[in-house]
């Protein structure tokens, strides 16, 4: 049975996604929609992390329930983002960040897929319920990053 491996990897990836969403939010203070939405969507990932940690206990795992805070660099990120907020160059950085988030969310999505498949085969109803509840939100995060890239890239790439 390797479901504990999947849980561990999913917990790691989901934690990383939450952290990256928070970092992106901090780094793009002047991009208001990105700033606010990335923070809201980090909330989904943080809830997934908590639920995964709780589910992990039954599988002998000791996983952290909380996503680490944004860290000591957060005020610096915010200050830098405001300094650069009136210049076009951070536009490319924004695209890079969205692209990374998208790939990160895609990885998490695949892990949820694996967990759901394994849980079905092993008749682990609780894990299947967890995946059914969380995976749709990951897909929405994935669509959001894709949509923002689609909306913002034409202006950034042609100016």
């Amino acid at each position, binding site marked *: 049975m390797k479901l504990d491996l999947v849980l561990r990897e999913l917990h790691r990836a989901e934690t990383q996604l939450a952290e990256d969403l928070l970092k992106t939010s901090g780094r793009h203070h*002047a991009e*208001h929609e990105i700033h606010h939405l990335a*923070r809201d969507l980090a909330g989904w990932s943080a809830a997934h992390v908590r639920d995964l940690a709780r589910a992990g206990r039954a599988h002998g795992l000791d996983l952290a329930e909380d996503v680490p805070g944004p860290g000591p660099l957060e005020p610096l990120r915010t200050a830098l983002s405001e300094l650069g907020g009136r210049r076009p160059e*951070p536009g490319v950085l924004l695209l890079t960040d969205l692209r990374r988030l998208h790939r990160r969310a895609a990885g998490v999505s695949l892990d949820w897929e694996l967990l759901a498949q394994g849980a079905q085969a092993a008749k682990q109803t609780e894990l299947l319920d967890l995946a059914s509840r969380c995976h749709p939100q990951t897909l929405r995060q994935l669509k959001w990053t894709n949509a923002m890239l689609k909306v913002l890239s034409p*202006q950034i790439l042609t100016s």
Partner: protein
Amino acid sequence: MGKRDGITEPWGTRTPYGPGEPWPVRVDRHLADGLRPDEVDRWVRSAAVLHSNGDGLDIAVKDGRIAGVRGRADDRVNHGRLDPKDLFAWQANAAPDRLTTPLVRRHGELVAASWDEAMDLIVRRSRELLDEQGPGALGFHTSGQLFAEEYYTLAAIARGGLGTNHLDGNTRLCTATAAAALKESFGCDGQPSSYTDVDHADVIALFGHNMAETQAVLWSRVLDRLAGPNPPAVLCVDPRDTPVARAATLHLAPLPGTNVALMNGLLHEIIEHGWADLEYVQRCTVGYDDLAAMVADYPPERAAEICGLDHGEIREAARLLGSAERLLCTVLQGFYQSHQASAAAVQVNNLVLLRGMLGKPGAGVLQMNGQPTAENTRECGADGDLTGFRNWANDAHVAELAKLWNVDTARIPHYGPPTHLMQMLRYAETGTLRFLWVSATNPAVSLPELNRIRSILDSPRLFLVVQDAFLTETAELADVVLPAAMWGEKTGTFTNADRTVHLSEKAVEPPGEARPDLDIFLDYARRMDFRGNDGEPFPQWHDAETAFEAWKRASAGRPCDYSGLSYAKLREVSGVQWPCTPDSPEGTERLYTDGKFFAQPDYCESYGRDLITGAPMEPTEYRAMNPEGKAMLKAAEYLPPHETPDEDHPYFLINGRTIHHFHTRTKTGRTPQLRAAAPEVWLEVSERDAAAAGLAEGDLAEVSTPRGAVRARVRVGGIRDGVLFLPFHYGYWDTDHPAGKDGDRAANELTFTDWDPVSKQPLFKTAAAALRRIGAVPAPAAEPVPAVVDEEVVR
């Protein structure tokens, strides 16, 4: 013939009536001092332009000047009535500080110029930027106060001529969420119901809608029902103690930003108690299971805790809504300008869908507009969608538009949703949008976080064109100012919040060299030498009526079908509701009467968005979810607002409107009676909060947020504890503050920049603020301005 004070009695004499009876006629009139009706030279047909109600009226002309107004007894909207702004604000047309020549900036100063000089500057800059960067460098910010012909022309020029995706109206601030909520639920914009539903309803529920002040004549209709036999029950949801709240059977005052939680709590009860019409839901909607699962998590206790309400109030409200036989719901800025705007407004649609209260007399939803012609901005494609409620993500719709305009499909940007205003300003802030043409609106006062907005508009990187009748705070920052004709000085059509189209005819000449907005746009197009594929000048029309005929063709076959209308018909009938086609020449009172919607995948205006993330749905997803084009029940969880009170800023601050003023007071502030009625900004504070801050009625207070501070005289009471209210109308044109400097009068100095991810409507009702007393400063002596108007009840 009676008289009343048009200011202190804004809703006039009661004319009670019962359910299903016709609303009696009462003709209101106000003429210039000493002028008798029989001395008027001409009465010219028009409608009201200082709110979204669309009251039909005639303009009195005496010696070539506007000399008063009279409500039209035969108009379906107002049955003769007029509100205070309608009655008095016509005087602003003759204000001495109208713009009468173009202005251009030379050595930092705006100086008078000829039309040729001004237009040459604009055209030269347009061409430079097109060569250097392409159409993405140019953007247009228009209004909710022009005419359909003008929006249609601007949309054609921006999208079909220049090929820029950057065109949006100030409707983004007032009505974007109405459009978004309708698109989410019904696949397409278009007001489902009619004002006549007030005549039949047994429960009227107003969600964040201070109808008494924003649509005063419609409120008269409600008051007349309340005064008649078998009156409706009224539910009011508003943190303020508005005139609506005082007339209501039940008033819920939730904390700002918690509307989704409240609505989910109400829907929880509707489902739990079996008040849903499951047959209707089954036949006409998709999405019930997801909605039921979502609201199951919002029992009244939980909703009440989030909203700062008593759970008993939520239960009682749900019972009222659940037991209504003819339920009419209305929604406005209390939802649209609040956190989770679209998600909350969609839940009101869900309420009427769950209850099967749609498409029959007295039952439905009115997602209201804020401005007189906002509907036209939306339908003509001068904001977030393509002309004629066409879907930017549907290639066939774009091809149809290209064929209409006789331009290449590739010319019309459709690689993403049309750029919304807040995003355009962000592009301007980063310097990638370098040309902005603002028509008939005043972002330097109306948008959130004014310090930021001014810095964007004032930036030397941005070439700013402002087209207006007055030197507004925005015009002060412009590179070129174009003097525009106003209502009464030009001809065109416009459409109110219940799809009623009116013709507004030219009554007098505009002052000086001021020109109709339509002529200015067409002049630009000719100077830019836009051509269709046949080599003929584009747009292919040249005046108001040819523009209207072109717009009719663009609307034909779409939900907002004007093809059965003409100027001639609108000169015969006072107000016709679209769709109006050769098959339905009298117009259409209610949409969706047969449980059929405009939501078929090939026809719908929008494939919808995620209510939380705002991400557009893909065509294939939509097709899978809603193959038959039913109405859509869409669920959303509550998320906390992005700014909430804390120790340093312990209050919620919201801003909004008053009955006496419109937008940034460019007209109402130049109207003696309206100016005297509300001369200065004020702050509403609850009794408890006033006592805590040591504030007495009339004291001067400072309210501040991290963005700035506003000083205002205090009005104690009329609002729930913990919430402060400022009217947003007050800017700086009539103060000593020079434009471009930070002031302490405009409410939007304090707002923070955040918008609804679905409708992209900026939020004006989410901010955390501090409050302190400055002192008891005597108010300037008020100068009484007589405001007597005539009213005649026709029995």
